[in-house]
């Protein structure tokens, strides 16, 4: 026996067989795992985040035996791997792969899959699985991950035929990245991955029920109807969602806004698709959005929704949302039509294709009165915070924005700091804001920043977390340290689960329950244990100096531990399920009724 290479695979080769080593199609035996890894490489996957285990050993072995351009990142928990792939995708628009073992390994990906599914993020998760003849017999580390993940993926597969692996991997990539993107999962039993492969490396798809090419055929009649509504609007507003970003329709959106002299607000996930420092920008809308964006919703006579799904954080009470306005809804997903809000004109399709057609039908107008009115609201209800009485999270975020001139990639966790980051870190361009919106997954931000920093080694990447969320995935400090990723890890520590505490203060007579994070570690010492330097901020006067120091350090990760005031509340606020008119812009004087909406 000797070793030779087929398409970069090192394989055991019998001396008696043909020595043709460079021929890709030669008959030398490779296994399913090698075919799978080779396919992922051919598809242009750059990173595989993962964690090994018994049922996945053949696939991990293929990472060693197949020569690829892919880089493997060993994480410390499977949830970290999925969030890293998610952060990579949100910072690039491209999917990464996740490779984990069966049972608990696969199970640990569920929260990350749900996070990606809710926010339409592409990724390919590959799980090892017990051998096919043990499926359903409670084998060691067996979990029905196919069944478990059906509700949290765009599509998934349990592979039963080694030769189908390249087709399934290609279909997975195709499904994940086209139409409304989303995560996909491939469950690969061990006998399938280590079985001999003799199939096609580039077979045709078998997807009769999936045709994303129709997303680019925009209904002319709807475009005409939309253009007519636009022509007669006196107080138009554009609501830009992540769909606009995914379609890379930034320029078309800008043309629409500037031609119509139309203010633009964005969703949490749409932050950056329209530069938030532009005079027409109203910032983010919704539950903790700017007062002027929400006032624009209340007073507009036309809402042009480009790629947002009318999330419940945005609309409050559906029956009262924009009730005096006409509504145009552009969405690639036909099932979003009328799900939350019934539009006057629905355009199903790719946002860039739709906007291109609409832009051909509009002419330049000015809306001086309307914009003047909104500018008045900007002056009357600015986003603000106090610089006295202890350090506020808002100040740290605000100064980060100033020092990085809005050019950093920012990831967040979930809660008060997330909303303040959305308010005070204005995004100037797409793919610079990584935040778990739909799922609201704590522990998302830091691993997502790792994925983003790997994708963009030269860019400043800031991970902003609270003390609660950071402790959910802090073990990835090791991953960041090993790869010397120059992430600025900001921990805004108020020793509380602040958002829940805020609700308890406002709606539950200040009865705090299950929110006091007593026992937090010294985050600087924690970083030191991983060999990561840190800075500590407690006084408002020290913020600039310490942040400058941290931003200047690029030899690896650095942790910024900001000890913030314990009790502070995010405003503006629209209680869940309430009408936008019920927005409060400052702490209420009287006790408020419990919200009727979800959370």
């Amino acid at each position, binding site marked *: 026996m000797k070793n030779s290479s087929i398409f970069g695979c090192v394989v055991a080769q019998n001396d008696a067989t043909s020595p043709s080593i460079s021929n890709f199609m030669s008959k030398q035996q490779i296994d399913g795992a090698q075919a799978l890894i080779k396919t992922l490489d051919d598809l242009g996957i750059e990173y595989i985040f993962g964690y090994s285990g018994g049922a996945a050993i053949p696939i991990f072995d293929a990472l060693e035996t197949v020569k690829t351009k892919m880089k493997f990142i060993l994480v410390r928990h499977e949830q970290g791997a999925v969030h890293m792939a998610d952060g990579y995708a949100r910072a690039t628009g491209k999917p990464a792969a996740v490779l984990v073992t069966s049972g608990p390994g696969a199970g640990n990906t569920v929260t990350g899959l749900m996070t990606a599914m809710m926010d339409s993020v592409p990724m390919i998760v590959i799980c090892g699985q017990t051998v096919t003849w043990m499926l359903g017999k409670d084998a060691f580390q067996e979990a029905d991950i*196919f*069944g478990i993940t*059906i*509700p949290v993926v*765009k*599509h998934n597969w*349990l592979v039963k035929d080694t030769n189908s692996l390249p087709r399934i991997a290609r279909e997975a990539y195709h*499904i994940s990245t086209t139409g409304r993107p989303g995560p996909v999962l491939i469950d690969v039993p061990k006998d399938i991955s280590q079985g001999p492969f003799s199939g096609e490396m580039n077979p045709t798809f078998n*997807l*009769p*029920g*999936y045709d994303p090419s129709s997303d680019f055929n925009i209904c002319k009649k709807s475009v005409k109807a939309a253009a007519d509504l636009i022509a007669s609007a006196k107080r138009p507003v554009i609501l830009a969602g992540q769909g606009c970003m995914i379609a890379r329709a930034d320029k078309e959106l800008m043309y629409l806004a500037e031609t119509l002299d139309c203010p633009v607000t964005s969703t949490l996930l749409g932050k950056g698709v329209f530069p938030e420092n532009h005079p027409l920008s109203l910032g983010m809308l919704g539950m903790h959005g700017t007062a002027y964006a929400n006032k624009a919703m209340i007073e507009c006579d036309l809402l042009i929704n480009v790629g947002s799904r009318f999330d419940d954080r945005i609309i409050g009470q559906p029956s009262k949302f924009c009730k005096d306005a006409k509504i145009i809804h552009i969405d690639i*997903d*036909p*099932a979003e*039509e*009328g*799900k939350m809000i019934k539009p006057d004109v629905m355009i199903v399709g790719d946002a860039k294709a739709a906007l291109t057609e609409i832009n051909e039908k509009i002419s330049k107008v000015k809306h001086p009165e309307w914009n003047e009115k909104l500018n008045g609201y900007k002056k009357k209800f600015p986003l603000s915070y106090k610089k006295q009485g202890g350090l506020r999270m808002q100040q740290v975020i605000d100064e980060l924005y100033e020092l990085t001139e809005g050019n950093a990639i920012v990831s967040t966790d979930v809660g008060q700091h997330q909303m303040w980051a959305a308010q005070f870190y204005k995004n100037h361009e797409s793919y610079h804001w990584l935040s778990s919106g739909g799922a609201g997954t704590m522990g998302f931000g830091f691993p997502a920043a790792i994925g983003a920093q790997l994708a963009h080694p030269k860019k400043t990447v800031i991970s902003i977390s609270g003390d609660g969320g950071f402790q959910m995935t802090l073990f990835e400090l090791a991953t960041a340290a090993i790869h010397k990723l120059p992430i600025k890890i900001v921990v805004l520590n108020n020793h509380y689960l602040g958002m829940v505490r805020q609700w308890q203060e406002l709606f539950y007579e200040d009865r705090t329950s299950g929110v006091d994070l007593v026992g937090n570690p010294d985050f600087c010492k924690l970083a030191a244990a991983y060999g990561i330097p840190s800075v500590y901020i407690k006084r408002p006067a020290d913020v600039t100096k310490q942040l400058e120091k941290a931003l200047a350090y690029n030899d690896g990760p650095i942790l910024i531990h900001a000890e913030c005031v314990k009790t502070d509340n995010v405003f503006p606020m629209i209680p869940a399920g309430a009408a936008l008119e019920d927005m409060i812009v400052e702490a209420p004087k009287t006790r408020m009724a419990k919200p009727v909406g979800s959370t």
Partner: protein
Amino acid sequence: MKTITTTDTPVAINSSGSGHTLSILVNNQPGVLMRICQVFSRRGFNIDSLVVSQGRNPSFSRMTIGISGDPAGLDQIIKQVGKLIDVIHCFEHTSMDSVTKEMILIKILCSSDERSAALQITEHFGGKTVDLTPTSMVVMINGDSPKVDAAIAMFSQYEIIETVRTGKVVMARGEQPT
């Protein structure tokens, strides 16, 4: 007459009520039914009847699903089902644009004295006797759901041991595909 305990007691025989009938063409693959059922259950729709069988092309299966739930959400649910990768199409059919049929097997206790009357009822509904013993009889009847309901009502004068209904199958009228 001896007492028969049965789990199939005639409590709510109403298959023709206010529900909706969906015809879904899907890839013939494991897990497809699970994907579809999850859409319905998550939105609080109950599945009243379900018929699945392989299509003429064995790569596909045909499902006819009777569901009931909030009609306001129906359009959106049809679209949610339609966007599943394994679903080729999902259509709602009404009695105006389609034919709906089902089959029932009714097992009754029936002595020789009662037999000729039972056979008359069977004949009236265009049914068939598919099993006969000195004390029992199994009758098969096809038709739309109200007809099947009516047959059950008529046979209720006997002691019905059990009934098995196939659930509705639907086909669009004329040259329209289902």
